[in-house]
């Protein structure tokens, strides 16, 4: 069964290739179905790997495919590492991925129609399958280099999918800009990851996980090496998993279609950083200082993003900042040594965040349907234009509610259990971080309550909302499945049973099991309820009309402006980095390249021309002057003969 694992990549890759080459002939419907089948098949293979592990006593197995690089001592193979950690990721990626593929069947149908380009339907599924293949390469690789291949692949797909509607967006270039921003910011992280890989190879002579971790004990390590490696890995994770200071690409990435936001920017790609750190836990164990940095980066990101989310008006932006915040929770957890808690939250978050994003897609399309029906022209993503959807979207409303409450961390939903484990870890190891995360959790519940109230309750504020219509079954069915998972996934690691801890323990080694603490749990639940109550108090009667002011604005005054404008971080980066860089580019392109180098060569050409022109002036056509010159020449030669006997 283990030998089937290469198929987990090759099937989606085949789906990508077939659709890319023959998509036009197959037609949209069949191409999309092929993509869904490919995704489902990879999920099947992932299940098979789980079964294989179970039958193998949960011991890891490496499946070798082919030799890749063999340069002297440098050996890298195309090999798959099947252990409990990678199977967890495989199941999440392919499982949630399949559900999102199915959802996209319906969503993209309407989206291409809405954007007047039916032909682009197939392209979406081409990219989506490629993404799935790349992400699976990332999680199944047995070396840092294979991880990097997948890492770059998902970065590429993220760029392609964010800029799917490349000619749309602000000033007809907004989406393309967002895609560029994602790619460039990610690159900065990739730089960190590459340097880390160089250092790892230089120190350990190998990039394969097994070999590197083996040699940790035998190789003589200078003091700065492991902290440097681990901090550089953190830089890579910060880029991919949207942590401070490299999170700025994720909110802009919402320009992509909603299934993309759900799959890539909530459930899978952004979790790659956490996976990588967990995979390298043996390295981090040797560098306390790095773990501290990781934990604080996560905590700061968690609270920063949460504060921004409370003041956003676009339904997807709230979820985007929420994702950044929750990723901060996960990173903080692994920074504190709570790898199980971090991975647990990764899994549950994948479920309810994908659910929320897909749900928001359903809401947005419901608004678009209403706008079409009522010939209205408002922004379907602006929550101020919504309202009263509770009575109009029978299925979406329930699944969204479940997702929101799971995110807020209310028991007995899954989000409560996973977030609670993180808080327990923080409480035990670092009280300061604990309080930061608690405050972030408070905001989380608050902004979700705010979102629920603004979107679903109150009166419909625009004709679009009044005529909003529910989504078709192909979209609501995955939503229901994800909702069920959001409810029951807590069972993965119930206090007392700790099934997930044992499962991951086979790869991560002995893991401390923290006793369930009623104080921590009670405090977090109480705060969540308090936050929801506060949201209710502020927002249940607010926004009678779309143009109304946000009650938080009067409450917080000038601070609200800072929150709504994302603490002006983008503007700061623009001033510090983007403008100088653009100025430098202009200088090199215009003055140096065009002006300097091109002009030099043009001048050479001109010079040759002028010389030629000068010489041609000698030929005037007068035979007499030619004769004179000839005669002068003869005289000269004779004179030379006479003088120089």
């Amino acid at each position, binding site marked *: 069964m283990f030998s089937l694992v290469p198929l987990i990549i090759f099937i989606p890759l085949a789906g990508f290739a077939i659709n890319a080459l023959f998509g036009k002939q197959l037609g949209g419907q069949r191409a999309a179905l092929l993509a869904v089948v490919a995704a489902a098949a990879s999920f099947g293979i992932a299940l098979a790997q789980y079964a294989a592990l179970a039958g193998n006593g949960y011991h890891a197995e490496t499946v070798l495919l082919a030799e890749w690089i063999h340069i002297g001592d440098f050996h890298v193979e195309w090999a798959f590492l099947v252990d409990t950690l990678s199977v967890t990721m495989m199941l999440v990626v392919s499982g949630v991925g399949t559900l999102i593929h199915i959802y996209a069947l319906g969503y993209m149908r309407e989206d291409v129609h809405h954007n007047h380009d039916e032909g682009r339907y197939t392209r979406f599924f081409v990219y989506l399958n490629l993404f799935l293949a790349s992400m699976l390469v990332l999680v199944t690789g047995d070396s840092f280099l294979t991880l990097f291949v997948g890492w770059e692949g998902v970065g590429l797909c993220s760029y392609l999918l964010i800029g799917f509607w490349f000619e749309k967006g602000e000033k007809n270039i907004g989406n393309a800009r967002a895609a560029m921003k994602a790619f460039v910011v990610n690159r900065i992280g990739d730089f960190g990851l590459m340097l880390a890989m160089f250092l790892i190879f230089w120190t350990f002579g190998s990039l394969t996980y097994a070999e590197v971790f083996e040699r940790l004990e035998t190789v003589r390590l200078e003091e700065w090496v492991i902290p440097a490696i681990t901090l550089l890995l953190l830089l890579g994770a910060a880029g991919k998993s949207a942590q401070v200071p490299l999170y700025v690409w994720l909110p802009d990435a919402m320009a992509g279609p909603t299934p993309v936001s759900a799959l890539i920017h909530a459930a899978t790609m952004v979790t790659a950083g956490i996976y990588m750190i967990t995979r390298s836990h043996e390295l981090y164990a040797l560098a306390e200082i790095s773990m501290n940095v990781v934990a604080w980066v996560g905590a700061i990101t968690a609270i920063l993003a949460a504060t921004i989310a409370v003041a956003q008006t676009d339904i997807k932006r709230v979820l985007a900042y929420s994702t950044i915040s929750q990723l901060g929770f996960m990173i903080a957890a692994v920074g504190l040594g709570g790898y199980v808690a971090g991975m647990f939250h990764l899994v549950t978050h994948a479920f309810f965040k994908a659910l929320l994003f897909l749900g928001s897609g359903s809401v947005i399309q419901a608004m678009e349907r209403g706008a079409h029906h009522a010939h209205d022209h408002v922004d379907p993503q602006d929550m101020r234009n919504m309202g009263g959807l509770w009575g109009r979207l029978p299925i979406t409303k329930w699944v969204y509610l479940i997702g929101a409450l799971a995110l807020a961390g209310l028991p007995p939903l899954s989000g409560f259990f996973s977030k609670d484990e993180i808080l327990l870890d923080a409480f035990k190891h670092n009280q300061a971080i604990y309080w930061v995360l608690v405050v972030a959790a408070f905001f989380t519940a608050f902004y979700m309550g705010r979102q629920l109230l603004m979107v679903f309750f109150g009166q419909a504020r625009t004709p679009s909302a009044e005529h909003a219509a529910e989504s078709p079954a192909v979209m609501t069915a995955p939503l229901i499945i994800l909702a069920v998972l959001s409810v029951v996934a807590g069972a993965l690691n119930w206090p007392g049973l700790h099934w997930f801890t044992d499962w991951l323990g086979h790869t991560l080694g002995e893991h401390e099991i923290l006793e369930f603490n009623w104080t921590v749990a009670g405090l977090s639940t109480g705060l969540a309820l308090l936050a929801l109550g506060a949201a209710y108090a502020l927002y249940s009667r607010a926004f009678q009309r779309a143009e109304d002011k946000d009650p938080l604005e009067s409450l917080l005054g000038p601070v609200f402006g800072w929150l709504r404008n994302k603490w002006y971080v983008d503007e700061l980066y623009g001033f510090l980095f983007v403008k100088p860089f653009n100025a430098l580019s202009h200088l090199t392109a215009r003055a140096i390249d065009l002006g300097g180098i091109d002009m030099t060569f043009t001048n050479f050409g001109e010079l040759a021309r002028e010389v030629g022109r000068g010489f041609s002036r000698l*030929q005037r056509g007068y035979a007499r002057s030619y004769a004179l010159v000839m005669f002068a020449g003869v005289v000269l030669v004779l004179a030379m003969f006479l003088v120089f006997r």
Partner: protein
Amino acid sequence: MFPLIPTSYFVALSGILFTLGVVGVLTRRNAIIVFMSVELMLNSANLAFVAFARQFMDVSGQVFVFFVMVVAAAEVAVGLALIVTIFRTKKSINVDEISQLKG
């Protein structure tokens, strides 16, 4: 025998005639006058040949004069034909006007 006229006198005369010919070629605008000047140059060469033939008592010099005369004749024939053709088109034999091959 009475004394010979020194050869240098003949060569000097030949030089003067040649110079006159050159000046004529360079200065005159009428094509026929240019040809006459060229003939003058050729004849000055002939004179030099004959003078040296007498000095060295060698007939080869005088034989060469025949060659030169033949060449001169052929050249005049061709040249005059050219002039006639040019005159037919341009109605003038001013060498300054034949300047179309220019850069």
